[in-house]
């Protein structure tokens, strides 16, 4: 059982929420220029980490708003809850975000380049 602190409604049982999977997966702007392998990596490959993970939740039975969570998948400890349009602010969260393989994936490189233009 998870006990999740919704940023707007406070602590609630996890039965009130829906899981949104891994957070910070960016859709590539120009998917056509990715190879099948690169697109498969974006679409299907999972981080599925044993330990810290960044993930999305939505408070379905409450305020119906999305937010992000930094959780340990072994202990189910929730370390940080933060808005879905932001990056984690805790040290562990920042480190995990930076070291995640997606930061180096072709899909994400493409997204960043497009934004810079």
């Amino acid at each position, binding site marked *: *059982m*998870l006990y999740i602190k919704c940023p707007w409604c406070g602590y609630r*049982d*996890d*039965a009130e929420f*829906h*899981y949104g*999977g891994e957070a910070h997966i960016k859709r590539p702007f120009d998917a056509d220029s990715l190879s*099948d*392998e690169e697109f*498969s*990596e974006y*679409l*299907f*490959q*999972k*981080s*599925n980490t*044993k330990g810290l*993970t960044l*993930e999305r939740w939505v408070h379905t039975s409450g305020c119906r708003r999305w937010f992000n969570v930094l959780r340990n*998948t*072994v*202990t*189910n400890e929730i370390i940080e809850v933060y808005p879905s349009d932001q990056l984690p602010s805790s040290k562990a969260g920042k480190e995990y975000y930076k070291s995640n*393989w997606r930061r180096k994936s072709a899909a994400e490189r493409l997204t960043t380049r497009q934004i810079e233009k």
Partner: protein
Amino acid sequence: MKKPRSNFGMQGLRSEKEKYSIFSLARNAFTNHENWAQAWKSPEPKTEYDVIIIGGGGHGLATAYYLASQHGMKNVAVIDKGWLGGGNTGRNTTIIRSNYMWDESAGIYEHSLKLWENLSQELNFNTMFSQRGVLTLAHSEHELKEMNRRVEAIRLNGIDSDVLNPAQIKKLVPIININPNLRYPVMGGFIQRRGGTARHDAVAWGYARAADSLGVDIIQNCEVTGFNIKNGKVTGVQTANGTIKAGKVGCVVAGHAGVLAGLAGFRLPIDSRPLQALVSEPIKPILDTVIMSNSVHMYVSQSDKGEMVFGAGADSYNSYAQKGSLNIIEGMLAAAVELFPVFSRLRMLRSWGGIVDTCPDASPIISKTPIDNLYFNCGWGTGGFKATPGSGHVFADLIARNEPNSITAPFTLNRFVDGYLIDEHGAAGVAH
């Protein structure tokens, strides 16, 4: 030769070359059953093996057994971080069936069911395989129509399946509630009469004993911490007890496939989630069929000990904690009590969770990997137990020949690149 000392419990069950039979049972009765030999040895690992199988669950042990028995590979080790069958092999609800809709799934699951039918004889170990029938319920007009379509597809693959109406279901399962005023009434169902259950521990022990007698080394309490990879080819595994060289490595670690793929330097399209089950106090025989319901998500059977064995759904979130949320169990029990009012005063004895590796298309991966001579058999999701013999059989074939056969070919890792997915989400018995 020194007679092996008798041992406790599961390891105390076989003398050299002794076959289990009524005669060996009678013979050992004269010595108060103190002279049964170990069912398998627990040797120190050698420095090198032709094949190392990581994961001593049913699938891994079956793989080792078939490598030795079908492919003549005797220099094989099975290594496990814990004890045999301590993972999902000992945590599932032991349901066996092959009524899957797609041809690819029918191929692997029916292959497996056929092996189940002769498994106790082949292993000389009673797996308590019981073909008591698996009945899947429909609770709406739409579901019933979909079920009829699925039954035709299943029968086209030569797999037995029959649609039953509520009256026929009531006759088969007298304790079921077919009152049409239920929130989710029983509108019909389909049954695979060749389906059923088996004793999960016995499957692991039977394969372990048979593999051991063919020369396979079974090494427990030896966690794999890394792979030795040279020029894109695996050459051995690093373990808690040191490095072991290997010609080939097969990885069958339900719940941890993603972790081991990470150690080898690649990723899998797998999410690991808790799946829960629970058993009641034992009662007299009351249910001789396996009942599954997809839409209210409940499955139940009665074990030979008399316990009602309930299976709940998987939690939605990723976790390696081997426990799930209570609301999943509450939802399942609410459905169970509505369908079987007689269960309402049953007390539950135990509940537990296992970590299941689920693929985006709810079908397994039995495949070569980006690393040469490293093979993965994973992603069985919520329903791997039924496939134990078939999975081991075809995985052994893949490892021995380094080439997929007609059954394993569709289950390649590459299907997530070329898009040839085998979408079994809810197409079979219970939602994944």
